[in-house]
């Protein structure tokens, strides 16, 4: 039953995205920035760090898709007057909502492919993936953590234009503190502890390790950190979301 619902939602989301290709534009543009990073690395003779640019490209693409594109779903449903219909159906609304966000976040993976091709085609650099299983596991957990955390932003986006301004502002600190491009060890000491509270920090460190030939350490513990931080974000999001939905139902303003 659940599987049928999820498959149906996935198919619906794919159809909706095909009708609204602008949603996919961040995946085209964000990885392009890795060309600038790769240029700095090659200019300085540090081609060995090329993987860093790829890690940044994929994490920023996934982040953008879950926190910005995916988070618009709820606001769009209200605007399109379709929220009442989904909420009135016997399914818990968070199942189709989360499924849709996960579909969009997963498309962010293409950011990695694009950046990899860019490194190869423009700079002639081949980034080897030494631990593919670790890359796959880290990315899967990152998408999951990003998608459930996006419940928070989905809820906030229902409160008008200015919340998007705040939301937009968070991307900068999130990527800087998460160390998606430059490892957190290059930040001042006093901010480094905060980074460990951001799941992107663990994702970035694991992905960089997975591209190195050496054996990565404490893998399960670090994957667990992504999962735990994702769960914490998801829990906060679920509470916010159910309160919002309860409020809208009580006031009869689901579509207003």
């Amino acid at each position: 039953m659940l599987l049928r619902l999820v498959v149906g939602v996935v198919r619906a989301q794919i159809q909706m995205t095909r009708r609204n290709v602008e949603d996919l534009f961040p995946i085209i543009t964000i990885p392009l920035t890795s060309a600038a990073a790769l240029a700095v690395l090659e200019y300085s003779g540090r081609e060995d760090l090329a993987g860093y640019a790829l890690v940044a490209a994929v994490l920023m693409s996934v982040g953008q898709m879950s926190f910005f594109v995916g988070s618009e779903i709820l606001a769009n449903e209200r605007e399109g007057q379709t929220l009442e219909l989904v909420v009135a159906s016997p399914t818990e609304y968070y199942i189709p909502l989360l499924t849709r966000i996960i579909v969009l976040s997963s498309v962010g993976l293409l950011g990695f492919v694009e950046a990899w091709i860019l490194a190869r085609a423009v700079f002639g650099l081949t980034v080897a993936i030494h631990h593919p299983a670790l890359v796959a596991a880290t990315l899967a957990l990152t998408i999951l953590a990003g998608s459930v955390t996006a419940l928070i932003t989905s809820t906030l986006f229902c409160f008008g234009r200015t919340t998007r301004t705040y939301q937009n502002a968070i991307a900068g600190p999130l990527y800087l503190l998460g160390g998606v491009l430059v490892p957190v060890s290059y930040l001042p000491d006093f901010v480094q502890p905060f980074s460990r509270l951001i799941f992107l920090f663990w994702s970035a460190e694991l992905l960089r390790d997975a591209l190195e030939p050496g054996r990565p350490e404490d893998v399960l513990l670090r994957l667990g950190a992504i999962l735990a931080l994702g769960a914490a974000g998801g829990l906060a999001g679920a509470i916010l979301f159910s309160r919002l939905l309860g409020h809208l139902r009580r006031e009869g303003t689901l579509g207003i």
Partner: protein
Amino acid sequence: MTSFRIFGHAAHLGFQDFRVFWTSWRMWLGTHVVRVFTTAAMWILLGRLVESEEHVRFLLIGQVVILGAQYTGWTVAAFTWDRMFIGTYPMLVASPSSLVPVMLGRTSIWLLNGIATSWVTFLILVPVFRLPVSVTQILWVPLAISLVCASSYGLAFSIGSIINWVPRLRNIAHNTASIVMMTICGVVVPVAFWPEWVQTVAFALPVTHGLSSIRLLMADEFTDEVLVGVVLEAAVGLVWLGLGALILDRTVNAARRTGAIDLI
């Protein structure tokens, strides 16, 4: 005279657009500046990653300038708001005026936002990364930054006048242009790093010439080369702006003739 009046009204409207995003300057400082500072810091730290303090300095100056140019680029998106969200575009086209003063006014706020963004970034990043600056530099560099933003505005106006007809592409056009400029115009690596044909493209784009003048100013080299860069930057910007105005007038007039005003 009429054009000035139209410009004035449109600029007022542009200011209201701005307030949709930021309702007060405090909010602007608390959100926009935080975003801009952290983005710049991420790129500057790339210099630390490759262990070159010289490159840290290079990236810092580059970021200060490119961020202004990038935010000036919101002009591209502002071109499309009438037609995407408000439905007032047919009325603008139907009115007897040229759309050039309308769009110049409507988008001028984003030029001001770009300049303010660059100035504030400069004022914050210099002490944070302990870059030594003299009083002369503090006087001249912001002026040169403003010129680069103005010249980038010319390019954004040109792109906007085309995107006006394919509004769905507004964000991808603006972002791609920004990223290309950041990559090849001497922001992250010297222009000479790139193959010759890429350099030729860079010379036809805003930022390249003005930024090289700013780099000279920051290195205390007040030579004729600074002036050459400034003049070239202004010329590049004016050509793009003129081209944009021409495209806008031509396409709008064609639409008036065929009646295809809102058929996109």
